[in-house]
């Protein structure tokens, strides 16, 4: 149960090895030693993530199996998460996602489909499962890690960008459908975040960190916001970008 000043008792991270997901869990769980459930595919990395969280002040940290590409099992994942958490789930962070390799994926192979099914289909399925679970609780928040890449899709990363555009739109609608249910949806739209996922890439302008994204997310949750941009300035930048003519937009370099 979340308290009046935003302290939570439990957090579920879907994509439990995501650096941003972990940073959010750490910030949410640290103050009152909340229970964290990390859900993901690789038990080895999940256990390492759990260690990090414990060291950072989380209370109990549990690890469960979850695969974004196996939608049939998503509802069970939520039930299992609540069981190991020992009660209600206060915050569910939808943190999983694949960046892919645009150049390779464009030219064949199953890379593009994996990005699309993970980032969009997986998010739709897990989002609905989370919404259903929280609705029955009568309270809770879903944090959806979107990206500015989905705000206007670019030539340079349109496979990833379009998957985020779809998932962002899905969570906007899901949030609207949950008004009055006690459940809220917070969409987080970071710019370029320096993490393992972007290692080796040259940072885009307005690059940020997982810690900054987590901080903005926690503040957004407390304030009851529906969307946060990280850094906040990107909201203004994209208000302009959205209206650039296509011939100009397609020349924006990666």
């Amino acid at each position, binding site marked *: 149960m*979340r308290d*009046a000043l935003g302290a939570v*008792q439990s957090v579920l991270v879907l994509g439990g090895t995501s650096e941003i997901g972990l940073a959010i869990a750490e910030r949410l769980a640290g103050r009152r030693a909340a*229970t964290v459930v990390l859900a993901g595919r690789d038990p080895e990395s999940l256990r390492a993530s759990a260690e990090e969280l414990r060291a950072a002040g989380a209370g109990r940290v549990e690890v469960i199996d979850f695969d974004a590409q196996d939608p049939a099992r998503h509802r069970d994942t939520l039930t299992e998460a609540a069981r190991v958490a*020992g009660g209600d789930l206060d915050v569910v962070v939808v943190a999983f996602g694949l960046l892919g390799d645009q150049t390779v994926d464009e030219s064949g192979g199953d890379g593009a489909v994996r990005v699309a099914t993970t980032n969009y289909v997986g998010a739709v399925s897990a989002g609905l499962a989370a919404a259903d679970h929280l609705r029955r609780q*009568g*309270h809770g928040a879903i944090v959806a890690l979107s990206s500015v890449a989905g705000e206007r899709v670019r030539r340079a990363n349109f496979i990833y960008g379009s998957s985020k555009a779809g998932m962002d739109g899905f969570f906007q609608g899901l949030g609207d459908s949950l008004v009055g249910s*006690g459940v809220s949806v917070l969409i987080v739209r970071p710019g370029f975040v320096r993490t393992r996922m972007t290692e080796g890439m040259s940072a885009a302008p307005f690059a940020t960190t997982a810690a900054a994204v987590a901080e903005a997310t926690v503040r957004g949750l407390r304030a009851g916001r529906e969307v946060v941009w990280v850094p906040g300035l990107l909201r203004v930048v994209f208000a302009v970008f959205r209206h650039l003519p296509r011939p100009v937009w397609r020349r924006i370099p990666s």
Partner: protein
Amino acid sequence: MPEPRTLTGWGRTSPTAARVADAPATGDAAAAVEAFVAAAGERGVLARGLGRSYGDAAQNSGGDVLDMTTLDRIVDIDLQRHEAVVEAGVDLDRIMRAVVPLGLWPMVTPGTRYVTVGGAIGSDVHGKNHHRDGTFGAHVRSIEMVTPALGRLVLTPESHPDEFWATTGGMGLTGIVHRATIELMPIETSAIRVDGWRTDDLDQTMSLMAERDHEYRYSVAWIDCLARGASLGRSIVEFGEHARRDELPPGKRSASRALRFNPRDHMPAPPWVPSGLLNRFTVAAFNELWYRKARRRREGHLVAAPAYFHPLDMVDGWNRIYGARGFLQYQFVLPDGEEAVLRRIIEELVEQRAASFLAVLKRFGPSNPGPLSFPSPGWTLALDLPVSFGSLADLLDRTDEQVVEAGGRIYLAKDSRLRPDLLEAMYPQLGRWREVRDRMDPQHVMSSDLMRRLPALSGPLAGAGASTPRRRGTP
């Protein structure tokens, strides 16, 4: 089955959804309540009155809530025994309108008349006469309720002391009260004779109250929370007595004039009030004016009871002035001898500019046998804090610690953010309360968001990393 809708407490923080049903206004109330409790789902049931508790005590997310305000009959008023039999959804406003013309007054009234009798019992509310008369529960002669495990019960402090006192202050978690008999006091007029003092600092405020309290039935201090430095704790201290008939001006002494009680409330607080309206500067200006306006000492002026007891009731929905994010109230009690801690806490809140309107300071008398009843002998301070204040969470967590270390506690009816691991230390009889509750409701059918947020209300905490409670029988 009604559709879920969102509920909040008076502070308007933490909305959660529940299925809300009306208690049937006609027919056998006890049977209807019994059926409601029997039909409880996995997330349990809870009774709700007028939603005046500040936090989440009257919310039951994902479960069922019984709106008791439809059970609003005054069943009987006994002029000889000075008591009223009422349904649990009746509020003190209705009771006062009915009994004041008869020369009677509820033994205890909190700062608002808009609390139901059921809610007043569940929170074991107190008023400005606690130092003399104790809590609301201390003047409840009998409770009729439905419990999940023991069915219908009629409780008196003599017949069922354990169940009676677990229910009084039990935050609605022992069952659903549907009727009660409450004691009334005889009054000659509906006016209060007030002796008011303006004090310069906290020492003066506290010594005045400690010395003069026993001379008066009612006593309270309004602290100007924006006064700092040497003026820290400057207050208006108000002592009051029910005025006698012969103290009224001649010409206003007829029975009907003397016992007139017709407060006209409902000046609405506009819904568009911006949350910035109550900022440090407007509050400071208001407090300065209000403090200057008071005379150093003013004895024997007559005030209508509603203006004395329930000044905020005059503004309908005054909780909206704090804006959309809501606010919380922090109320704690510290034992006598811990005045230094009280001073330190006030200093910190003032230094951090937590910008409360005014804080209310009062001395409590002896506590009652209720294990979860809040009042205990010493000083209680209550202050409103708007939620937008940035570092409030950490500040109050630290304050909790100081309160515990000094042997004090916070008031559950006001709470919306207590550190869960401190509840048991604040209420040393919590284990005793759980034992009695587990006899009345072993499955924890009665449940609330307060109980989910403070798992020690369900069972003993298992070390660090408290988990949310689950009803027994669910996986």
